[in-house]
């Protein structure tokens, strides 16, 4: 069992708060991804879990044991750094052995067995006698993971481990990490700023912004049911379009009025301003006739392989629609647009919070 629980964990630097009372429970064998833009406090949170930063307020429990103020080595964790942090003067083998040789009571044959086993899993057996300077980025990354694996810790922490790799290798290593997590049943807390990495790797994803936890959930849950406009626009590429509308309760739902259209949504709240959130695949582009909800003008198109994206100006707003490459509307064309109303989200314009559906 390796459960990690953060209870109101906060961090301040010289009185300036950077992480605000984060509550998060990472279950045993879970792959939890902390994601957010630069400066959101995700790395600081990870470093607090590692013990490399003091926790200003709150508690940290690993396996039920309070380790809030415990030294890093007493937390039974291992960390893979963004820069890999391999000792440049040691071979890959020695890098993996160093910590165990210096701190554990394991015999040399046992350490050797662990290293060879980890090397086998990571396909780096042939690299063990090489120094980091002759290894490629991906190989260094594997050695760094190997160094963490041989310790057999309760929790693995990853701090943006793939951000120094090129796109192709990053995709490959993502698959490798997923495989390792599944095969070895690891408990992982993984920090990234890349939402694709977060969505593809995480069992659950925790989104942070300005040092505050915005939402925690399964990747699809975050995508389909964002709790606020930050999550709505952070997850998904291209991001969700937000159209500023007025809302009035009407019957079981509400009437939403935009300068370019009026529609009905099942959400209900007091009259006020809302943001209608529409993902590109929820925009249906058609002819500008009476069957469409609204009309707009195509301002920009972009081919992204099998599909295309069209930026459409609707009143004072812009939205992005995903279309098949065979149906890309010409630039400047007037098009009709409709929305998949089952999937659009409604956010309170003032607070940014999603309005619940009846």
């Amino acid at each position, binding site marked *: 069992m390796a459960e990690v629980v953060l209870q109101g964990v906060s961090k301040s630097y010289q009185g300036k708060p950077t992480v605000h009372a984060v509550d998060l429970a990472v279950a045993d064998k879970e792959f939890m991804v902390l994601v957010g833009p630069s400066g959101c406090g995700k790395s600081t949170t990870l470093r607090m879990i590692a013990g490399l930063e003091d926790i200003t307020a709150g508690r940290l429990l690993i396996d039920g044991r309070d380790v809030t103020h415990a030294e890093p*080595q007493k937390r039974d964790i291992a960390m893979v*750094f963004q820069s890999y942090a391999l000792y440049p003067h040691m071979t890959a083998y020695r890098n993996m052995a160093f910590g165990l040789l*210096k701190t554990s009571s394991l015999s040399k044959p046992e350490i050797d067995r662990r290293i060879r086993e980890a090397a086998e899993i990571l396909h780096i057996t042939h690299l063990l006698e090489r120094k980091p*300077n002759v290894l490629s980025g991906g190989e260094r990354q594997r050695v760094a993971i190997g*160094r963490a694996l041989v310790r057999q810790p309760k929790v693995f922490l990853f701090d943006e481990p793939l951000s120094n790799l090129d796109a192709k290798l990053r995709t490959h290593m993502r698959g490798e990490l997923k495989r390792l997590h599944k095969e070895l049943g690891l408990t992982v807390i993984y920090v990234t700023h890349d939402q694709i990495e977060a969505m593809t790797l995480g069992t659950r994803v925790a989104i942070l912004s300005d040092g505050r936890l915005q939402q925690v959930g399964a990747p699809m849950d975050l995508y389909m049911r964002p709790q606020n406009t930050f999550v709505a626009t952070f997850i998904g590429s291209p991001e969700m379009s937000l159209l500023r509308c007025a809302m009035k309760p009407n019957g079981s739902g509400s009437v939403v009025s935009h300068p370019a259209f009026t529609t009905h949504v099942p959400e209900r709240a007091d009259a006020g301003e809302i943001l209608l959130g529409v993902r590109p695949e929820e925009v249906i582009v058609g002819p500008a006739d009476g069957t469409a909800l609204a009309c707009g003008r195509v301002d920009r198109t972009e081919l992204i392989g099998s599909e295309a994206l069209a930026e459409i100006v609707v009143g004072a707003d812009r939205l992005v629609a995903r279309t098949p490459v065979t149906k890309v509307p010409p630039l400047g064309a007037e098009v009709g647009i409709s929305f998949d109303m089952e999937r659009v989200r409604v956010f309170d314009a003032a607070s940014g919070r999603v309005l619940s559906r009846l």
Partner: protein
Amino acid sequence: MVTGPALRARVSEAGLAYLLLLPSLVFLATFTYWPILRSIYFSFHDVVLGSNKIYFLGFENYERLWTDKLFWKSLGNTVFYTLVTIPCAITVALLLAVALDSKLRGMTFYRSAFFYPVMIPSVAAGMVWVFLYAPGYGPINSAIAALGLPKVEWLYDARWALPAIIFMSIWKYAGYFMLILLAALQMIPADLHEAAKLDGVSAIDRLIHITVPLISPTLYFVIIIGLLHSYQIFDYVYVMTQGGPADATNVLTFYIYQNGFQYQDIGYASTLANVLLLFVGGLITLVALVFGRRVHYLGR
């Protein structure tokens, strides 16, 4: 093949490089290589200062070295001085640098404070330490007396004079070495230490197995610089002891000075200078052979 304007450009670029190098080459030749050649020439002659008379002696000056007890004593003193001063100063400097390699408040003040002795001119520093070591009124002896221990005639006791100069030299060198080592320490990526910390590696193991190997190029540089400095030690001896008592602090450079300028025996002084040059060269080669291979250059 490079032809035409490209060739002309390359030739003129090389010509400009030689032109720019010329002043320093002339300077080096005049004040370094020519004197070395002259001293080699003088070492085989008896030179009378102030006259043009010069008598060929062959290897007589070199033969004289073997039987010159004072030469061996001054060489021994120099070696002893170096072997104690340099390792001690580097160790103190390394420990200071590690202690000062933090972002705590007041570190800039401490760094400046430890570097301060380097900025004091050698002669002034020597004079200050003469006062500190003074047998009657010196603060060091006052402190010793306060502890109930017998006073020591530091610079007037043949047993203590050289250790006293060594101690003062460590004080003088440590700040300089500290600054260089501190710069090297700050080049070590923080996450290497953090990785080791997470592994539970102790501070002393981190120092021995991570810090020292990663600053080895700088340590190597500091050792070489230290050796060069210590074999040239002259000013402290001149100011503090004049080589005494009973030649207990007579070092090679001071002995060369005595022969050359006090006894006006330029031939023999040149011989001693050549031997010193060979000795230092040999020692640096030895250090390069022993340490050079163990130096680890980051990223290579």
